């Protein structure tokens, strides 16, 4: 198992490096010179150069070709890409726009994003799982068809429609809860939207996973032993479905951190989501790249953790 974890760890390192490369290409190499957005062109070239130097935009892009063979010299590595890697790993980046440190921004805002996404995800997960199990229990009945149909229906309504509808409703019922965080409990309005809008897809996915598993031989064995259906579902089936379910949870990690971009904007939650949107619009490259990297890295680590956890819990892998 140690070898397995080690192998996955190496893969994760490569993936994280890949993410850094990709964010570098997408956000830094392609968009070209953005200095004019941050340094008033009225101030002339020297000011622009100072700014470029300050943000290390004056360095060669990937490799310092002037000393291209002398990779043992520090100048060789003194390039934008290297600094990008370094900033990604240390979170030292500063916003182009406000010059704030990324760590400070994240520290200030992440808690709001988490306050929205963590309950939404936990609740959504539990709800989806329970509904999926119940639906799988009644598979083939009208109840199953109704719930599956509802799940599909729920998936098809545009997200925006949910937000507009729910906010409109809340303003009519309890205006103080419709926007902002005047009371901590206000967070449950967007949480509810996230859950409602997301539960359909999860239910459908979990149902497929569970039904896939329900047709396996060991389930028949358990039934032949006289295990009641809930026992079959919860004790035997669910345990075997854990990998896809855990994985689906992990794939949601980026949204834990980045927050629900639109939901936060709409409901006045000062999380990272609106910041991300704003930074993209402002071409605030350090913020965008580093937040993207952060989410991608957490996602990768999450997957790694899933695999390790699963290796711990699944005897077939554990004892390999």
């Amino acid at each position, binding site marked *: 198992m140690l070898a397995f974890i080690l192998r996955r760890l190496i893969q994760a390192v490569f993936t994280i490096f890949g993410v850094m490369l990709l964010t570098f290409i997408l956000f830094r190499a392609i968009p070209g010179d953005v200095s*004019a*957005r*941050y*340094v*008033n*062109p*009225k*101030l*002339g070239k*020297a*000011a622009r150069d*100072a700014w470029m130097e*300050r943000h290390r935009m004056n360095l060669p892009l990937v490799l310092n070709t002037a000393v291209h063979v002398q990779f043992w010299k520090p100048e060789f590595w003194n390039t934008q890409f290297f600094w990008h890697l370094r900033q990604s790993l240390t979170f030292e980046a500063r916003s182009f726009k*406000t*010059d704030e440190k990324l760590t400070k921004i994240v520290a*200030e805002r992440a*808690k*709001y994003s988490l*306050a*929205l996404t*963590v*309950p939404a995800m*936990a*609740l959504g*997960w*539990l709800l989806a799982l329970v509904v999926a199990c119940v639906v799988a229990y009644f598979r083939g009945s009208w109840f199953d068809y109704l719930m599956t149909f509802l799940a599909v229906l729920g998936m098809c309504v545009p997200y925006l429609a949910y937000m*507009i509808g729910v*906010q*409109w409703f809340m*303003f009519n019922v309890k*205006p*103080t809860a*419709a*926007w*902002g*965080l*005047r*009371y*901590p*409990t*206000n*967070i449950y309005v967007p*949480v509810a939207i996230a859950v409602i809008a997301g539960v359909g897809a999860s239910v459908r996915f979990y149902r497929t996973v569970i039904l896939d598993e329900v047709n396996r031989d060991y389930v028949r064995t358990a039934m032949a032993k006289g295990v009641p259906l809930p026992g079959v579902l*919860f*004790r035997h089936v669910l*345990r075997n479905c854990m990998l896809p379910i855990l994985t689906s949870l992990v794939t949601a990690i980026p949204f834990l951190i980045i927050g629900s971009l639109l939901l936060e*904007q*709409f*409901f*006045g939650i*000062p999380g990272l989501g*609106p*910041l991300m949107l*704003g930074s993209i*619009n*402002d*071409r605030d490259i350090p913020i965008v790249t580093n937040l993207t990297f952060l989410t991608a890295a957490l996602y990768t680590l999450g997957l790694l953790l899933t695999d390790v956890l699963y290796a711990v819990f699944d005897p077939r892998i554990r004892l390999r």
Partner: protein
Amino acid sequence: MKWFYVTAPAVVLGLVLLPIVYLRGEKEGQYAGKVVKYSSYGAEVKSLDPATCGDTTSAGIQGDFYEGLYTYDWLKRPLEVVPQLAAEMPSISEDGLTYTIKLKGGVKYSANPCFGTGPDGAHKTRTVRADDFVLAYKRVADYHINTGLAWAFLSERVAGLDEWREKSGSYKAGDFSRYDLPVEGVRALDEHTFQIRLRERFPQMIYVLAMSVYAPVPREVVDYWLGTQDDGKGGRRPIPVARRTTEIREAEQVVGTGPYLLKEFRRKSLIVLERNPDFRYEEYPSEGAPGDEQAGLLADKGKRVPFIDVVRMDYVAEDYSAWMRFLTKQTDASGIPKEVFEFVITPGKELEAKWAKRGIRLLKYESPAVYWLVFNVEDPVMGASTSLRQALCLAYDVENHIKVLYNGRGIRAVNILPSSFKTHAVAGPGPYYRLDLEAAKRKMAQAKEELAAAGRLVNGEIPELKLDLPGRDRAVLRMGEFVQQQFGKLGLKLRVIPNDWPGLQEKVHNKQCQIYTMGWHADYPDAENFLQLFYSPNIAKFTNNSNYSNPEFDKLYERARTMPDTPERTEIYVRMVNMISRDCPVLLLSEPLSFVLVYDWVHNVKPHPIGYGYLKYQRLDTALRRARGGR
């Protein structure tokens, strides 16, 4: 597995309840007994540094904690400049070049750690000195500070300041010792006397002095907040020069003399202003314009201002949310979103009765501003044919532009000056700023010939035109679509390119735009403020964005700008305005008409067309607000 089914729901429940535990809501008792004003804002506050302030949102908020030497009288019309931090109006030398200004005594900054901390832990304050103004002017001129508008009014006008700017460029950005270099034309004669010397006559200088961008900046702020940082042990340690910033950004660094201090500033989230306890004694005005008495604006005369203790502004990104917050009495005042306009306002531009019954009042005011589409005259197509520009002006249905896009909130602009300027009426409407499709089509034929002669036609057709927009939100895109329709009437194709604001700026500076939307809001009530936008040396200063260049115009401008307000100058102004009307470097759209809704518990609101910082006069009847179901 059983443990799983017990713990999993427990963990989920815990996670779900987590926000309640650690998410601090507004503490309900936080503002107990205080008068709190609630409002929403939707545009980002771009600057907290007086020197870099260049947009109306930032100016609006800065106006409440930064004060300039002079300001506009809040109530009086026509506009009148009155002393604010100055004790009296400036004494101007015979040649009109030297302005000597006596300061009010005993004006204090809001308390701040940079002035030191007393034994009881309370932060100290100090009185404003003349050298604080000197520093403010130096910062505006500072090469390392991104000062747009503020610098534009001083450059080539104040003696020695351009040279100082040159010198400051040779310093490192973080090296603040440059502020010790003297400037010839900006001096503190003594602690209470400040003097500015101009290179040439500038009759509009008094208006410049009334802008809050030149608010005093204590040197302590620069040295303490920009020069040192928290060392994590309760003390401060210096920041290496290379890593210093030059701009004032953080909430705690904002040190002003105004009636309020910035208590909390969370970008794109929340702004809280609190009454500045060190604010000097000031009284509510006792006289105003005709009609103010009847409007109840003088009921509080002689009382000490400010009235409001706390202002809480929430960043609300969506118009929809902002409007609903106003409707449900979460905020005290609101603009009127386009979509709801006709449900709130009658065709006669008055408030619908049912809204009035809810206790809502409508305030209308004209801003001295003109919106237009800028044609880049250096563009190969737009520059090659004056007839094309004239044709577009003639074809554009501005009436419907105002009706469809602004619900009729505006009046058609007929020359580049706002109608409240006296030169406006004298100059009269421009020949091409009217709707005449037939004439436009005739002009179009001419334009084709001109363009053909210049070799700009592609396959015998005018190539697709490009319109750059200053944003991506729906209102802006909607406008793009409308322009498409208008140009389509002449058979022209238009590609609409949404930009973010800095992106558009960048393109404009690089002269990459062909047509884009712009507007100009008067900085002071003088035609010169609008005419300088077409003065060709200003192309390099990035204020002449249409890149319009006309030697005759330039000559007239140079003559007029040092002239005092005489009929002769007005005559020159008119000639210049008419040149623009003839050459059409801009397609004039509208002069905006602004509508604001306030609840009846808000008193003493009178929108000011140019000045800022009148929040101190506002008064809230919180008992009425609670009675009406507000907070």
